[in-house]
């Protein structure tokens, strides 16, 4: 209807390849009660959460909560692996655990039976996409939990149990989000991870900024949640089910209505779901919560705000990919928003000094890539990028956390330098480097392959708009490489120089702050007035860093084994057996478009026939260029960076650029001024209206009417006997007259 029409007029029509791809079918699910032990994957974190709560209630002093959580997550990971081994990939499996929100009505209605029940059982839908996601969610989750057992040790007995309880809740919620067999269960997970995120961002609850960030995260996510809820309603209205299996069958059975704009309720579905995904995955315009979310402990940033939770939006779109083909403009919107976000976040990331914040913006940016991938029609690229990104971004965050841990909360890249040479920081520096290379898309790293598969699809789509987006993506890749290595060169390269963060003085206080005062005070003698030494991490952190670093490197392996068009890529296989199969382009572009098509792809000027290869070359060049520039400004000639900034600032034409970038393009301020302030003013107005007009004028005023009337008749009750007698007599006389009158009239008639 109007919504669709207006959007369609703006956006390009559906690319031909997508139309083809949409016809890909999803196999009906097989009910597998024998796999119901998979419910343990959800149950283990839930039990762990309860146990952590009990630990908190009993005031357990010790690392017991961390151990419980780590063990339960490892157990969940093991179970997921087992599920991966045992679960056949020929068709999705549904595992019914118990009934949840299920009820039926209209028992007599025969026709339209779809709308006589609402079934949202607590059931699992396991296909390869689920397994892929759960593998890295539980895997990374376990690793990061182990990391956190050491990282959070300064809070043992205080917030330790709370932290791990929240992490367990997160894993439970993420598990139900990913494994849930219907959209309602997904919604449960969706809000559940929001709750966990809220609790963990606000972990340092005595810091007002942390509390504000937690609140902001939840509220912004709620906006997305509303979109998701509306999407779910629309789905139920159109298909009469919210269960994936039945839904996909219904959607694929009625693809003929794909381009039929008359059914706007169907066409609106992807837009609603998209809103949910944008909220959870921090896309423009709802990305603002993610950078603030860095107020949480770093393991949380790594796990939730980099690796897993923020990819829930990607998961949602990949999971409901068939629905995104209902409206021709939907995927274009996804791609455009993704690309805008990627560029915007990258520009902001360039100008930040807080290394965690840089990483946060890079996360937003990379999530933008993923949405771009989904939008241009390569669910594989998007999912692969999710996969690789999960590892290297977790690695980067954990490195940041380790640095912070060792440097008393120092995160300002201007105040640290040459950490690679500091004792104990070696592993951190080199794993950090690997992470940076992946992020920067350095050739033959995991990030390189996954990012290229997205950009290549954009170039190869044959759609001018997508090609433009592809160029923006390449430019963003250049920016990414720059700001990534800006961080690394600043922090790990150059001469050794550092100063501690502000948490040094927070040790004695009752206040949490960034409570990383981890019991090293005695060793290092740091404290008030004492000399301060940075300290390197111990086994748990280093081990986890190395493990995840290994994972980040190995994430490239599928790409190496993937063949010329990644058709043998493990991730590709996983995706192609899932509901996201509709977004996988035909393996061989030559096969579908003929040999000539190669000559006309957007990168033909490079002279390379294959779009993938051409993209690789272009993106590599962009990445290396970015690294080189970063090296120039931040490793060899750090003065030049400041000089460049000064130059930009001094020129009135360009001075807005660094200022705007450093101030995050003022998006927060704009939101504050356009949304929060008016709404709050409205709240005040409404309260005034409520109290003064409704209550004051109408209610109290109405209550005064009887009083006013009473004033009219009050002289009758003047306290003198005869006054009352007069009233009574007059009344009696009138009544008598009236009664007699009636009698007379009645008698006469």
């Amino acid at each position, binding site marked *: 209807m109007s919504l669709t029409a207006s959007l369609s007029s703006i956006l390009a029509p559906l690319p031909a390849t997508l139309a083809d791809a949409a016809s890909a079918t999803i196999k009906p699910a097989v009910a597998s009660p024998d796999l119901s032990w998979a419910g343990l994957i959800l149950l283990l974190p839930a039990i762990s959460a309860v146990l952590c709560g009990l630990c908190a209630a009993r005031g357990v002093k010790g690392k017991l909560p961390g151990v419980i959580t780590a063990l339960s997550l490892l157990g969940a990971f093991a179970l997921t692996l087992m599920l991966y081994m045992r679960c056949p990939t020929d068709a999705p499996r549904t595992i019914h655990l118990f009934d949840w929100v299920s009820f039926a009505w209209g028992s007599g209605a025969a026709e339209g039976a779809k709308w006589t029940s609402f079934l949202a059982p607590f059931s699992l839908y396991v296909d390869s996409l689920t397994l892929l996601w759960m593998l890295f969610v539980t895997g990374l989750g376990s690793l990061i939990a182990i990391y956190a057992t050491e990282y959070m040790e300064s809070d043992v007995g205080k917030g330790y149990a709370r932290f791990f309880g929240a992490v367990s809740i997160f894993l439970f919620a993420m598990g139900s989000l990913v494994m849930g067999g219907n959209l309602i269960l997904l919604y449960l997970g969706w809000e559940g991870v929001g709750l966990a995120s809220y609790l963990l961002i606000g972990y340092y609850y005595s810091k007002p900024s942390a509390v504000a960030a937690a609140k902001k995260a939840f509220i912004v996510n709620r906006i997305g949640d509303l979109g998701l809820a509306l999407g779910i309603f629309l789905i139920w209205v159109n298909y009469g089910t919210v269960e994936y299996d039945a839904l996909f069958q219904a959607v694929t059975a009625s693809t003929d209505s794909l381009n039929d704009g008359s059914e706007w309720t169907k066409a609106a579905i992807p837009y609603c779901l998209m809103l949910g995904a944008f909220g959870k995955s921090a896309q423009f315009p709802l990305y603002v919560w993610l950078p603030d979310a860095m107020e949480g402990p770093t393991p949380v940033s790594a796990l939730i705000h980099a690796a897993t939770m923020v990819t829930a939006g990607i998961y949602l779109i990949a999971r409901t990919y068939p629905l995104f083909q209902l409206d021709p403009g939907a995927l274009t919107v996804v791609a455009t928003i993704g690309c805008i976000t990627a560029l915007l976040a990258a520009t902001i990331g360039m100008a930040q000094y807080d290394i965690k914040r840089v990483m946060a913006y890079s996360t937003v940016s990379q999530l933008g890539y993923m949405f771009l991938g989904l939008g241009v029609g390569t669910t594989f690229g998007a999912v692969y990028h999710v996969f690789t990104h999960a590892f290297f971004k977790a690695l980067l965050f954990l490195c940041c956390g380790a640095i912070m841990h060792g440097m008393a909360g120092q995160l300002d890249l201007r105040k640290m330098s040459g950490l690679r040479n500091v004792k104990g920081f070696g592993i951190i520096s080199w794993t950090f480097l690997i992470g940076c290379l992946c992020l920067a898309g350095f050739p033959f790293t995991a990030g390189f392959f996954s990012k290229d598969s997205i950009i290549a699809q954009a170039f190869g789509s044959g759609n001018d708009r997508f090609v433009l987006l592809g160029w923006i993506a390449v430019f963003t890749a250049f920016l990414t490489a720059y700001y990534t290595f800006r961080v690394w060169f600043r922090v790990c390269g150059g001469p050794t120089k550092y100063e501690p963060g502000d948490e040094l003085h927070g040790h004695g206080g009752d206040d949490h702050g960034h409570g990383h005062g981890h019991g090293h005070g005695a060793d290092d003698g740091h404290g008030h007035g004492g000399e301060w030494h940075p300290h390197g991490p111990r086994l748990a952190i280093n081990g986890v860093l190395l493990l995840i670093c290994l994972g980040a490197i190995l994430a490239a392996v599928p790409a190496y084994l993937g063949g010329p068009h990644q058709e043998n890529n493990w991730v590709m296989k996983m995706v192609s057996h899932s509901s996201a199969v509709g977004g996988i382009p035909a393996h061989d572009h030559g096969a579908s478009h003929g040999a000539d098509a190669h000559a006309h792809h957007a990168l033909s000027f490079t002279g390379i026939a294959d779009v993938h290869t051409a993209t690789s070359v272009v993106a590599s060049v962009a990445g290396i260029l970015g690294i080189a520039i970063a090296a120039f400004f931040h490793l060899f000639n750090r003065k030049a960076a400041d000089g460049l900034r000064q130059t930009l600032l001094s020129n009135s034409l360009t001075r807005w650029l660094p200022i705007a970038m450093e101030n995050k393009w003022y998006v927060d301020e704009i939101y504050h001024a356009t949304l929060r302030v008016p709404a709050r003013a409205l709240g005040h107005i409404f309260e005034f209206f409520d109290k003064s007009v409704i209550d004051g004028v109408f209610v109290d005023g109405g209550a005064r009417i009887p009083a006013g009337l009473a004033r009219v008749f009050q002289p009758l009750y003047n306290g003198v*006997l005869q006054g009352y007698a007069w009233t009574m007599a007059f009344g009696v006389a009138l009544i008598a007259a009236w009664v007699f009158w009636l009698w007379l009239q009645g008698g006469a008639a």
Partner: protein
Amino acid sequence: MIASPFSSANPSLLLNSSMHAILPSSAELSTPALLASSDAATVNIALLVSALLFACGLVGFLSRRNMIIMFLCTELMFQAAALAMIAFGKVHGDLSGQVFVIFILTVAAAEAALALGLVVLLYRRRETLDSEAWSELREA
């Protein structure tokens, strides 16, 4: 119509001696129509007097300030009621009206006793019979 001095059907039973002297006897009112008219007129006049007495009593009760006179006025209204009862009793040929006048008399006596006791009490308190001296129930 029992004991009616005007009824041709019922020669007077009571007023045979002295009353016959002052009241028109049945012999004088020989025409039935005239008799009926006169009979009805007596009742009507009684009713009219009753209504007027009641109105008078009411007016007096409402406008006189002296509490004793107010009570007298209520007695006046009692009288009016009694008169009306007897008049209607005559019309209906029933003695219940008269019996009720006995009760009215009783109530009036009781009321007079109590009311006068109250008046004395009130008078002791305020040294006045003005009813307006007692207006504690005044609103606002």
